[in-house]
């Protein structure tokens, strides 16, 4: 199996300016946004072997040149990028802006390939080195989306999902967090981590404590016990403003000012996030949610689905490190739901880290890299396919035209079949160790027995099966 190459991209400050620039940069591989880079951070991205182009951009018109490179199987390529201008004062920034936009867009950021390290056979065992001595923190930003084809994408996702927890720090670390309202427990002893660039699903029934967890992590309410670190900042009362500057939360109801237009709503929140020149950012956010042509409409005249889109645009304004979406499709009709899901998929493609709470399992399965299932207590955390494997044995479904004359005799002689049962007269469910091994053996046995086989397929357990297995017996948790 091909081992993807790893790109390590270090963002350095300007050598003449030690001040920290807070605007995050985005990393593009082959034109697709795959990670974000805070100042003096290092992002790690995996790509399939082959020729690719890399670009780092501050805004759509302030970016680096496109740097082409060849990635070999399992190799590690180190890049560094830095601003060409120190831009410490407004005058310099604006002068440089004008010059850059008048001459060339790709002069803003200097991007270089530092070295191409020998192949690494197993990227999961590789520890990313610090980019250089000047790097103040070696935060590793990961994203599973630096691929071109679905096959390559699958490799990258598989690789990064594991690597995220081995190599780099997480954007969100929650340890034994508990929230009680008097005698009522909203959630207790919740621990999990969310990696950079990950879409993390937080599932549970009504009253499970999902919204209270989001509110706690969003500094709206204080935890009773436990700890959390959000974008590297400990969840403490004195860090509330700093944390809220790094995150964005879209509550279940978007909470728009209905007498204000879409643009006015966004301008207001841009002001609250301290954006001095919000117009380009608002235009970008509206564009991202396909609402540019409705910018001057009053929010009161918008449908619920469109209001959700405005809410999403609002969360994009501050380019948050972590975005909390609390049941974003709640109460929407199927068309509006689809629109919102597509928008979340688009955000995912841009490398945005999303914490998605929902009780709609289909959308979690579609959107999330990993899920946590909770009902006051955390039941499990993992990738859906891993959870299926943990909870359910793998099985093959066999359908025949007529009932088998001696099924017990037939299946007993197939080594990879552990047990079997008849579902209906012509349908058999075989519990197997490995479907890829068992399927050919079963096929041969059936043909040898002159059975008229209609189909042999691996039985797929859905996330719903996992969820019901974990939650079904629980009594609904009390709502705070």
């Amino acid at each position, binding site marked *: 199996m091909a081992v993807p190459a790893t790109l390590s991209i270090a963002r350095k400050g300007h050598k003449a300016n030690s001040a920290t620039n807070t605007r995050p940069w985005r990393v593009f591989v082959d034109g697709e946004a795959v990670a974000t880079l805070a100042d003096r951070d290092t992002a790690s991205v995996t790509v399939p072997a082959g020729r690719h182009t890399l670009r780092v951009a501050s805004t759509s018109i302030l970016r680096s040149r496109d740097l082409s490179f060849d990635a070999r199987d399992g190799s590690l390529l180190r890049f560094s990028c830095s601003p060409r201008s120190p831009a410490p004062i407004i005058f310099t920034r604006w002068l440089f802006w004008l010059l850059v936009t008048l001459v060339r867009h790709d002069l803003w950021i200097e991007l270089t390939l530092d070295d191409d390290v020998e192949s690494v056979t197993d990227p999961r065992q590789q520890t990313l080195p610090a980019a250089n001595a000047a790097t103040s923190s070696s935060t590793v930003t990961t994203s599973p989306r630096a691929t071109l084809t679905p096959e390559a994408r699958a490799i990258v996702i598989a690789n990064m999902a594991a690597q995220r927890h081995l190599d780099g720090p997480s954007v969100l670390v929650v340890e034994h967090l508990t929230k009680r309202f008097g005698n009522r427990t909203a959630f207790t002893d919740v621990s999990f981590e969310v990696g950079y660039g990950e879409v993390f699903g937080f599932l549970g029934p009504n009253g499970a404590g999902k919204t209270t967890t989001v509110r706690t992590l969003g500094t709206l309410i204080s935890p009773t016990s436990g700890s959390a670190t959000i974008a590297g900042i400990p969840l403490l009362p004195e860090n509330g403003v700093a944390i809220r500057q790094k995150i964005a939360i879209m509550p279940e109801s978007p*909470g728009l*000012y209905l007498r204000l237009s879409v643009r*006015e709503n966004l301008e207001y929140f841009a002001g609250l996030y301290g954006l001095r020149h919000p117009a380009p950012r608002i235009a970008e956010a509206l564009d991202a949610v396909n609402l540019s042509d409705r910018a001057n409409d009053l929010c009161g005249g918008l449908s619920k689905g469109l209001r959700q889109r405005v809410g999403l645009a609002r969360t994009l304004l501050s380019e948050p490190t972590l975005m909390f979406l609390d049941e974003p499709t709640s109460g929407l009709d199927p068309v509006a739901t689809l629109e919102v899901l597509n928008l979340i998929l688009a955000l995912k493609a841009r490398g945005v880290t999303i914490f998605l709470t929902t009780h709609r399992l289909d959308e979690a399965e579609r959107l999330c890299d990993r899920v946590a299932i909770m009902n006051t207590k955390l039941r499990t955390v993992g990738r859906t396919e891993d959870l299926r494997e943990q909870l359910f044995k793998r099985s093959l479904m066999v359908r025949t035209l007529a009932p088998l004359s001696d099924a017990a005799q037939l299946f007993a002689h197939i080594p990879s079949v552990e047990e079997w049962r008849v579902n209906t007269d012509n349908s058999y469910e075989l519990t197997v160790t490995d479907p890829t091994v068992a399927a050919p053996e079963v096929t041969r046995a059936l043909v040898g027995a002159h059975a008229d086989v209609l189909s042999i397929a691996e039985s797929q357990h859905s996330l719903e099966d996992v969820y019901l297995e974990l939650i079904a017996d629980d009594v609904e948790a009390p709502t705070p």
Partner: protein
Amino acid sequence: MKNLDLPRVVAVVRRELLDYRRKRSIVVSMLIFPVLFLVEPVVAIFVAPPSGSTSSLDNAVILPLLYMLLMAVVTPSTLAAYSIVGEREQGTLEPLLTTPLRQQEFVLGKAAAVMIPSVALAYAVYALFLICVALFAHRDVSAAVFHDGPTLLALFLFAPLVAGWAVVVGMGVSVRATEVRVAQQLGMLASFPVIGVIVLLISGVIQPTFAAALEFGAGLLVADLLALRLVSRLFDRERLVTGSKASGRE
């Protein structure tokens, strides 16, 4: 009030004023009250006997002037009482609290947004009243009004201070109220101290002198600032979002 980010406060004020402008009923109600409060003083001044003694004329002038102070209390108290609980009922409070906005910035922005139109309106009505008196009232009555320096000073000095008091009390109620109607009814309590001062002046317990006006002004300013600080402390994100008091860490 350290680390106060003024642009955020301005953003809150601008949004509030924009919202007032868009809701015609708010503008109409803001205009109706001052007009109603203008009627009684104007009638009182125009029916005041010009041939009376100086002291009886002064008394006839003081009451309507001080009565106009209530205008600076009633309008802002209802608006302030709505300000936070109203956001909660609309569902706009939670998204707002998820931003980096500090509670002091939020409270200050809300207070300023109520104060600015209320005080501007009060001054406009006072000016209108004085113009009417100058143009149409009897010469002796007009002279009595314009020579009543302490009362006029009190009117102009106290208007922002009593409005500030009404705003802060209204917001204090709004922070803790569970629904708008309760908040607006309790917000009317803000006018009680002002009525008390007027009663004391009319009954002669307090003499309307420059010194008294300045002392009361200073006292009100201190009370306003202390109350604003208290309201900022009452502002509990957890209570506002969940309706429950923050339980704190174990």
